[in-house]
């Protein structure tokens, strides 16, 4: 199964819509509740990152028999130093993002904690691609 969702950079009113749809999808597929929670928390963090930092993005969801893969691909400023960005507390978020209750530099590390695997590639001035995978059985 394959699904795609568009994400607008800067549009905080809609932020979370895609992750909400992913949650509904996983519920319909009878995925274990604790896996749903870890998946959608990671997905929501990544979606908010696109809204907060990129110009636009697309979320690709692939559901396999034994795993879910979610790819977050954005066009944006990219991340210069991924290792630094992964550090808890490091953030380049704007005041507007902080007013929404984010931007504390906890997003990427929380994605890492919730996902079974995380891969980030980025090119400065082009964009960032983040891939998470969740195992469905044990």
């Amino acid at each position: 199964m394959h699904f795609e969702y568009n994400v607008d950079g800067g549009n905080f009113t809609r932020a979370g819509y895609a992750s909400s749809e992913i949650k509904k999808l996983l519920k319909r597929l009878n995925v274990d509740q604790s896996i749903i929670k870890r998946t959608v928390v990671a997905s929501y963090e990544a979606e908010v990152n696109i809204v907060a930092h990129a110009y636009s993005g697309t979320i690709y969801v692939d559901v396999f028999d034994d795993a879910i893969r979610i790819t977050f691909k954005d066009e944006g400023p990219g991340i210069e130093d991924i290792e630094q960005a992964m550090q808890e507390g490091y953030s380049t978020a704007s005041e507007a993002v902080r007013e929404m209750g984010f931007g504390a530099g906890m997003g990427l590390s929380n994605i890492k904690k919730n996902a079974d695997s995380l891969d980030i590639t980025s090119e400065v001035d082009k964009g960032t691609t983040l891939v998470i995978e969740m195992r469905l059985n044990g």
Partner: protein
Amino acid sequence: MRVEDIAKVLDARIVCGEELKDYTIEVAFASDLMSDVLTLKQDHVLLITGLANTQTIRTAEMSDIRCIVFARNKKASPEMIALAVENEIALIECRYSMFRACGLLYQTGVKPIY
């Protein structure tokens, strides 16, 4: 503690989610930082916050939080209420400060997470 009892203790108003009045919360967490809320692993969590926007509701949705108390007269907008209804989340508006709301709930035995 039941949602209805939380509203009673806080002398507060249930804005939506009346049907959840018997839903029981086990622990509470107070924060305006949604990033912090998203790190919680527990179930049956009550969120007490001063941050009233749609991302507060989205954060609760992703974290399986079914009840939010908005402290210090923060109001839920029609968009927030619509999103809360869709996701079966009870919203409570309370005029007390976050500190007072937390104190009262703690006194009645609601447990903290950390």
